[in-house]
């Protein structure tokens, strides 16, 4: 044999082939090779050999690779098998365990996501360590303060010119206008921003340039969502959108598209134009003013600089501009890091609202609490179950299992249950996000990433280990003989279990009571008599002529339009009490005016411009003087009505005929005093309020005014028909007749009023979800414990029955075990509930009181649920034939 088949092929064959088949297979191939190399030559024979070697790779020839001789792995798989069998044998208890843990995990994850979302606002920008928002705190003494997170327009240049640390200053102003796309006219919110916006913030520009998003003054940029909304799949660049600026539609060309702004950003808008337009939008005075505010101003510091150096210099620089008019530290410009904005409620809201971090932490705390409850449950149930397996442990020990081995096995069981629960829990939680959102009015947003899998599995492992370690320890210890004799539990496990039960009860009652209190407060808020009738009232925005520069001219036009619409609406029999006011109930931005009175004291009050029908329309009570008379010209021009709070505030003994104590007011007199109505939310005490038909005399005398939204009067009316939906139809019809080309903007007042308490309603919903879940968990825990107790006292019960105990007596005996713990739990929860709830209720100027009957109710409710859970098994145990329980040895 001169030639050999290819060596590597031989090697391959002997590597993969089973040893018992190798010899003859190899031999056959060699023989073939030999025959062929004689006939066709070495090369061809060689190819054939290789082909045959490859073709022989079949399942029947491949040998078993024994590389996984890893004992640990084999052991674990063995444990898993055994654990699975154990669970399958006792399905009920396993199910109980798994469902309890899963529910706890669901709650934890949902609340955890909420907390995570709220606390990571604005963190996605890469330059967060150098990004700040400026705010303005003016303090002129005597309560004469102004605190705003929106700033004067001149701040942008002010910061850029005077501070070398500032790399760029960017302004963002949000406002509304009518937008025209093709034939539609819709009222949309849009932003006016500095062109360097995208170089400071990390929002992606999808089409167009991030350095120069606006080609010129008439450019507009859109978010991806809005580009799709207006133009579908077509390329939006170059398309034209009309915006109504000052009553005239101006055309803007789309020059860029940016990625939708994420939910957890304090800066959010979908359309923007450049603030080069400021000179067109604002008048000269506002552009240069120090005291009139509009946009938010953000600054980006240069790398290596710190905000401290700006803070140190800023008062000096301010003084250099304003030193003649102001004293030091009266005009304070301060900065907060961008990441601080969302959870800092101390600073008034700028463009977006801030959330109270307290609520966020409380919810996080509750989420963790529920999870702990579930884990405690799991531990106690596991401990209970372990008793049943004393014999098994004993046998294993006899057969030679060492303690670590046993620990390993039982810990595996625990981890499996925990991982299974985590898997079920997380999947359910993530699927339940939309349900959670609709239940609690939140906007939780979850996007799955593969990395998260690791977190969840890790969590399962952790829970399994921690919750399982105690029972496993207790179970695997113990002498063999004792185990075989199946004695009852040790003293220590008893004690610990009692503590856990008390803790569970306490937490459940705490959550229950809190929910009840919050519900009570919310009902109170929504049902409290506000002093005026709000049902079936609608408010409509009246169009005006925006091209008019003068405010009073605008008001005049509004009044005319109001009269037109009123005449049309009055034709309908179901519309009544048509009136007018500059603001509606439920809007947060009533005109807040200020002046310095004759004694140099700074005074503030709220102002509402109304017509003569207002008081009657809303059934507002007069407690002194008279209302506006319909035909009185004097009333139209000069009369004002104040509320009781104002009368007290201005120290009027006899308000009728008096005037407001200012120096510059026009001619006016007080003709009446109304009862204190809650015109703003019940968070605040009733403030002084002035009502007048003519704003001028009052307007002349004030030094400052703070208004959100438009001060132009709105039309208000009541619907007296049967079907409230009709109101909208009647309104649209009337509107079409009078203002055919304008878009209709209206709302129902009671909805607006309810919205003031949105935050609280959401919080309450979250807490009630948590408390429902905690009740379920506690019930599951109680169920498991009951089964456990019954099992371990089987003999005792049997003997008692033999001795003549009745079913009721047995029932009472078993029920008594937990009643004491329940009572202790309730008592313990009281101080915690009191403390937290008092803190929350202090947010409201008008609140319910914390009465003991609340605690009693939740305690009874908890007890009732407990009895329900316990009774089934207990009764069954009490009814069982004692022979059977005593027979088992």
């Amino acid at each position, binding site marked *: *044999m001169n030639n050999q088949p290819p060596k590597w092929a031989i090697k391959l064959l002997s590597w993969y082939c089973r040893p018992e*088949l190798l*010899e*003859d*297979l*190899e*031999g*056959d*191939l*060699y*023989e*073939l090779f*030999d*025959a062929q190399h004689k006939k066709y030559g070495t090369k061809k024979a060689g190819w054939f050999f290789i082909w*045959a070697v490859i*073709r*022989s790779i*079949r399942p*029947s*020839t491949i040998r078993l690779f024994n590389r996984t001789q890893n004992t640990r792995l084999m052991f674990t798989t063995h444990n898993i098998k055994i654990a699975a069998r154990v669970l399958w044998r006792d399905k009920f208890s396993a199910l109980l365990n798994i469902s309890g843990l899963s529910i706890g995990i669901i709650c934890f994850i949902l609340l955890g996501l909420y907390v995570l979302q709220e606390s990571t606002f604005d963190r996605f920008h890469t330059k967060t360590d150098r990004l700040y928002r400026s705010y303005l705190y003016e303090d002129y003494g005597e309560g004469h303060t102004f605190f705003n997170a929106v700033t004067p327009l001149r701040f942008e240049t002010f910061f850029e010119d005077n501070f070398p640390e500032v790399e760029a200053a960017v302004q963002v102003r949000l406002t509304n206008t009518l937008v025209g796309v093709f034939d539609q006219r819709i009222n949309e919110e849009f932003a006016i921003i500095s062109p360097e916006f995208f170089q400071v913030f990390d929002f992606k520009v999808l089409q167009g340039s991030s350095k120069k998003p606006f080609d010129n003054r008439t450019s507009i940029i859109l978010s991806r969502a809005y580009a799709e909304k207006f133009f579908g799949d077509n390329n939006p660049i170059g398309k034209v959108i009309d915006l109504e600026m000052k009553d005239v539609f101006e055309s803007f060309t789309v020059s860029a598209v940016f990625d939708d702004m994420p939910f957890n950003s304090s800066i959010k808008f979908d359309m923007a134009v450049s603030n080069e337009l400021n000179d067109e939008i604002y008048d000269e005075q506002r552009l240069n003013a120090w005291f009139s505010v509009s946009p938010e101003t953000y600054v980006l510091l240069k790398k290596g600089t710190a905000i401290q150096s700006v803070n140190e210099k800023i008062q000096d620089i301010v003084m250099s501009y304003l030193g003649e008019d102001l004293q030091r530290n009266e005009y304070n410009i301060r900065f907060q890091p961008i990441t601080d904005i969302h959870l800092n409620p101390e600073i008034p809201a700028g463009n977006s609202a801030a959330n109270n971090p307290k609520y966020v932490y409380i919810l996080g705390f509750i989420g963790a609490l529920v999870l702990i409850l579930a884990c405690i449950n799991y531990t106690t149930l596991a401990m209970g179950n372990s008793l049943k397996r004393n014999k098994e442990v004993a046998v294993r020990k006899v057969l030679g299992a060492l303690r670590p081995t046993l620990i390993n096995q039982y810990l595996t069981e625990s981890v499996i249950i925990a991982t299974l629960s985590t898997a079920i829990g997380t999947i359910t939680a993530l699927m339940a996000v939309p349900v959670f959102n609709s239940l609690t009015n939140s906007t939780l947003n979850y996007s799955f990433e593969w990395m998260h899998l690791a977190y969840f599995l890790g969590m399962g492992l952790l829970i399994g280990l921690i919750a399982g370690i105690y029972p496993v320890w207790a179970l695997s210890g113990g002498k063999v003989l004792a185990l075989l004799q199946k004695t009852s539990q040790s003293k220590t496990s008893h004690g610990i279990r009692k503590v856990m039960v008390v803790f569970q009860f306490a937490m459940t009652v705490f959550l229950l009571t809190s929910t009840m209190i919050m519900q009570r407060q919310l009902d109170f808020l929504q049902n409290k008599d506000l002093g005026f009738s709000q049902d079936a009232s609608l408010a409509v925005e009246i169009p005006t002529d925006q091209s008019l520069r003068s405010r009073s001219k605008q008001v005049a036009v509004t009044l005319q339009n109001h009269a037109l619409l009123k005449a049309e609406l009055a034709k309908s029999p179901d519309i009544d009490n048509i009136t007018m006011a500059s603001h509606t109930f439920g809007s947060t931005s009533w005109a807040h005016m200020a002046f310095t009175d004759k004694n140099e004291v700074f005074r503030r009050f709220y102002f509402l411009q109304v017509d003569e029908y207002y008081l009657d329309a809303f059934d507002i009570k007069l407690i002194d003087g008279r209302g506006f008379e319909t035909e009185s010209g004097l009333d139209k021009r000069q009369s004002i009505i104040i509320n009781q709070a104002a009368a007290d505030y201005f120290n009027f003994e006899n308000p009728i005929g008096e005037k407001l104590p200012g120096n510059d007011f026009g001619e006016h007199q007080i003709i009446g005093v109304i009862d204190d109505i809650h015109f703003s939310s019940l968070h605040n005490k009733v403030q002084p309020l002035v009502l007048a038909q003519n704003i001028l005399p009052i307007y002349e005398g004030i030094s400052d005014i703070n208004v959100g939204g438009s001060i132009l009067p709105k039309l208000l009316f009541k619907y007296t028909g049967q079907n409230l939906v009709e109101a909208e139809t009647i309104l649209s019809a009337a509107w079409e007749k009078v203002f055919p080309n304008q878009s209709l903007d209206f709302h129902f007042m009671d909805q607006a009023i309810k919205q003031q308490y949105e935050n609280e309603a959401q919080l309450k919903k979250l807490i009630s979800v948590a408390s429902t879940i905690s009740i379920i968990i506690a019930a599951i825990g109680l169920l498991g414990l009951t089964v456990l107790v019954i099992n371990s006292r089987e003999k005792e019960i049997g003997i008692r029955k033999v001795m003549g105990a009745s079913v009721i007596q047995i029932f009472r005996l078993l029920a008594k075990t937990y009643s004491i713990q329940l009572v202790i739990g309730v008592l313990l929860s009281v101080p915690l509930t009191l403390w937290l709830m008092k803190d929350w209720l202090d947010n409201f100027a008008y609140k319910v009181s914390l009465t003991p009957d609340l605690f009693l109710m939740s305690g009874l409710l908890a007890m009732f649920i407990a009895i329900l859970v316990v009774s089934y098994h207990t009764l069954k145990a009490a009814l069982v034939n004692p022979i059977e329980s005593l027979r088992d040895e």
Partner: protein
Amino acid sequence: MNQESIGVLEELVLLTVGSITQGAYALTILEEINEKAERNLDVTTIHSVLRRLDKKGYVTSEMGGATKERGGRRKRFFQLTAAGKTVLDENMELRMELYNKIPKFTFSSI
């Protein structure tokens, strides 16, 4: 007793094993089949079928006959078992029965 059914190729190999009374191993079986049935099977196919038949219990094997061409490696000789013979008989019976049922073709002009 129900025996496992046997495929066409398996039947062919089984028949060949039976017909080669002396020295039936992979290569002789291969040669016989390729010659008689005029097919061009691969040796690895034969190996595979033989292992299957062994598993099913229709053949037995024993080692022997090392040669120089094989580098001293022995051959694996196969023999028909009783079960193997039975299954062949049954198959044959079935085929004959069905075949005899087919009516003789007559070519008549229509």
